[in-house]
Every structure is written in structure tokens, then in C-alpha cells.
């Protein structure tokens, strides 16, 4: 069975079947049905003629549109970003470009300042982390070490050092070796630290004898051992070890 709206659109009241009439009469009177149906027909018959030029204009637009090269997706994107009818600054592409530029510059600035500040913060945090007693101790130690290991600013050899360096003090038996001394000493290797021996008399006499053996990196040169005896003076051992 049809709904009332379908009946109104298709049948007059007199054309309705009994069941259809019963259906309609549950909702409205016969007069109301006829009036409504008639009013709807009147409204539908109302013809407001559309301007015929509208069609010709649209057809011309359509033909022009088709005559222009088919817009690819890329062209459409370009048109969307840079529509000709909009002012330059209002074109989405231009606005996007400006926004991107601002973001890039702003981002770079933020990163730069962020890195610097984080480094500074890190240093400050590290310094803050060091307990004060450690820094105080460090300072004290530094002061003490400055005092105990004072650098020898006076580099001129003392008289004792000059005496120790004199060739006469170092008896060199092998004159051939002596002639190659520069070369030999450039390549000399102390083969045994124990080769340096302290004579007993170091503590009982005023002289100090020390034995040593050297072997050149040049295998043509023979291994040589020797000893040196010098007058015992404070700091002489340091001098000797430094010399050899």
C-alpha cells in the first residue's frame, strides 16, 4: 500500500480505493486532502521561466573550458596554490612560502639558542655538582704542588752540572766508538736498568761510581759497557740518570 504522500501525488480522493481512503481519513478530511493536492499542483504548475541566456553562457563556458589544455594534477595544484584571481599576498602558495620561511628561520634560531643555552646550562650544572670541599682541596693541592714542583726557570747549568758534562770525566776507552758517539747516542738503548749499579762507596766516600751497558741500534757497533766515577754531590744521581 502506498503512503499518503504518494497518494496525494498520484490520485484524486475519488480515485482512492477503500483501504486507501481509510488510510487518508485517519489523518485528514476529504476536503483537506483535495485542498492540499490542488495547492501542490498549483505550486508545481507555477512556471518561473529561467533566463535562456543562462544556458548559452554556461555552454560557452563549458566549451572554453574544454578548449583549454586539460589540467593535470600538477596544474591543478599550481592553480590551487597560485590562483590568478587572488592578490599576490593572498595566494596560498605565497602564504605557505612565507610561513615556511618563518618556520625555518625561527627553527634555526631556536636550535641555535637552544644548543648554546643547553651547553651553558650543562657546564653550570657540572660546576654546581662539584662539592665545595673538593674544589677547596683541589685549590690547596694546586698551591702546594706549585710550591713543591716549582719550575726551574734558571736553565743555565750549575757548576757541578758543567763539571759532570765535561768529556774528561767520562773515560771512553774505545776511540772508534767515541768518534761515532753522536750517532751511537742517538740510537742508544739502555738494555738493562740494573746495569746502573751503585758502588758501595757511594755512602762511604766522596765519589760515586756507576756501571752501565749500552747497545746501539746499529748492529755493526758492538755492545759496550762502562762505568763512571764522579765526585759525590747532592743531586748528582739525578744528573747522571738524566745524562745517560
Amino acid at each position, binding site marked *: 500500500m502506498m503512503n499518503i504522500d504518494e497518494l496525494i501525488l498520484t490520485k484524486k480522493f475519488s480515485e482512492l480505493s477503500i483501504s486507501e481512503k481509510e488510510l487518508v481519513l485517519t489523518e485528514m478530511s476529504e476536503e483537506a486532502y483535495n485542498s492540499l493536492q490542488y*495547492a501542490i499542483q498549483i505550486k508545481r504548475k507555477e512556471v518561473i521561466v529561467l533566463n535562456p541566456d*543562462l544556458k548559452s553562457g554556461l*555552454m560557452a563556458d563549458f566549451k572554453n573550458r574544454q578548449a583549454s589544455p586539460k589540467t593535470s594534477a600538477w596544474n591543478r595544484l599550481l592553480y590551487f596554490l597560485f590562483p590568478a584571481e587572488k592578490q599576490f599576498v593572498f595566494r596560498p602558495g605565497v602564504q605557505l612560502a612565507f610561513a615556511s620561511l618563518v618556520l625555518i628561520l625561527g627553527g634555526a634560531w631556536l636550535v641555535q639558542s637552544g644548543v648554546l643555552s643547553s651547553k651553558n646550562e650543562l657546564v653550570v650544572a657540572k660546576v654546581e655538582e662539584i662539592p665545595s670541599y673538593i674544589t677547596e682541596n683541589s685549590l690547596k693541592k694546586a698551591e702546594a704542588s706549585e710550591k713543591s714542583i716549582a719550575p726551574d726557570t734558571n736553565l743555565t747549568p750549575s757548576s757541578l752540572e758543567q763539571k759532570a758534562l765535561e768529556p774528561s770525566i767520562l773515560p771512553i776507552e774505545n776511540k772508534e766508538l767515541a768518534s761515532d758517539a753522536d750517532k751511537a747516542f742517538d740510537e742508544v738503548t739502555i738494555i738493562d736498568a740494573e746495569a746502573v749499579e751503585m758502588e758501595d762507596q757511594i755512602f762511604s766516600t766522596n765519589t760515586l761510581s756507576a756501571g752501565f751497558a749500552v747497545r746501539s741500534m746499529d748492529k755493526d757497533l758492538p755492545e759496550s759497557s762502562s762505568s763512571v766515577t764522579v765526585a759525590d754531590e747532592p743531586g748528582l744521581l739525578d744528573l747522571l740518570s738524566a745524562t745517560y
Partner: protein
Amino acid sequence: MGVFRSNYTQKSDENLMELIINGDDRAFGELYDRYAQAMFNYFHRMLWKDREKAEDFVHDLFTKIVNRPDMFDVKKKFKTWFYSIANNMCKNEYKKQQVRSNTYNGLDESYNVRSSQRGADQKADDQLISEEIDKALSQLEEKHKQVFELRYFDQLSMKEIADIIEISEGTVKSRLFYATKKLASELEDLKVLIGG
């Protein structure tokens, strides 16, 4: 030529749209012939019987097809899609009007102006009936009026109306039932004019 013409008239709206997407201007002409007047009536009704505005809207509506025929999904029903666009255009216009003035229902104003303009000059019964139904419609809520007009004046099915205004079919039925009953009672007195 006549053969081609008849071919176009027999094509479905959806087939015509496929042809339009491929640049067929005759298909566009055929589609225009099918819908232009109906859409004009629709806009005329919806936009406070403003003829010029209705024509502009028809132009804009078809321009959408001219510019972007590919917006239409050929798998969908053209009529529903087309009315949906028209309906949205009207909604946007209502919003614009609402911004311009707080009087949302411009129909009342328009109707009053028109009825006063017409006055005693238009005494034909049909015109009176037409005005009466307009008056009765204007007393309905917009949602009821819209469903009533789409069903009786545009002769759209319940399903199509539901799709266009994006409500359920059941809601369409209930709104239509209410509007029909209300208008029937309002127009009952017209029996004298129609000889009922």
C-alpha cells in the same frame, strides 16, 4: 543529428556526467535541460522567491560542473548529489543572511512584502491558493518545510531526501507526515476556492 539527440535524452544522468567529464558539451546541454528549471524553482523557493538570486545560484551550480565535473563520483546518484550541492549552497546563503541581519527567516519578510505588493491586483484563485500554501509553509519549521517541498514540489523519494539533507529515512518520514498533516489542516478552508 536527431539520432544523436535522442541518444542523449535516453542516457542516465550518471552517463551524461561521464561524458561531461570527457568534455562532451552536448551531454552538458542535455543535463542542463533536465535540471536547470527544477533547480531554478528549488532556489526560488528556498531563497525567499528572489528571482535574481535564484538565477545566480543556478548559474553557480552549473558552473561547478563546468569547472570541476570530476567532483562527481559516477558510481553515485547524480540527482541526489546535485540537490545536495544546491542544498548546501542555500545553507551557506542562510548563514550569510544570518550574519547580515539577525532575522534568519527572511521568508516571512519577503512574503509580507510580496503579498502587500500584490495585494488586490492578483485575485485569481490559483494565485490565492499559491499564496495560501506559501503562507502555510512559512508557518512550518524550516526542517519540515524543506522535506515537504522536496517531496511534493521536487518529487524526490524519501531515500533521496534523506541522502540530500543527511538525515535518516525515518526522520524524513516523520517530518513529512507532520508537515502534510499540518498543511492539510491549514488549507482545508480552501475547499471553497477549489470547489471541493
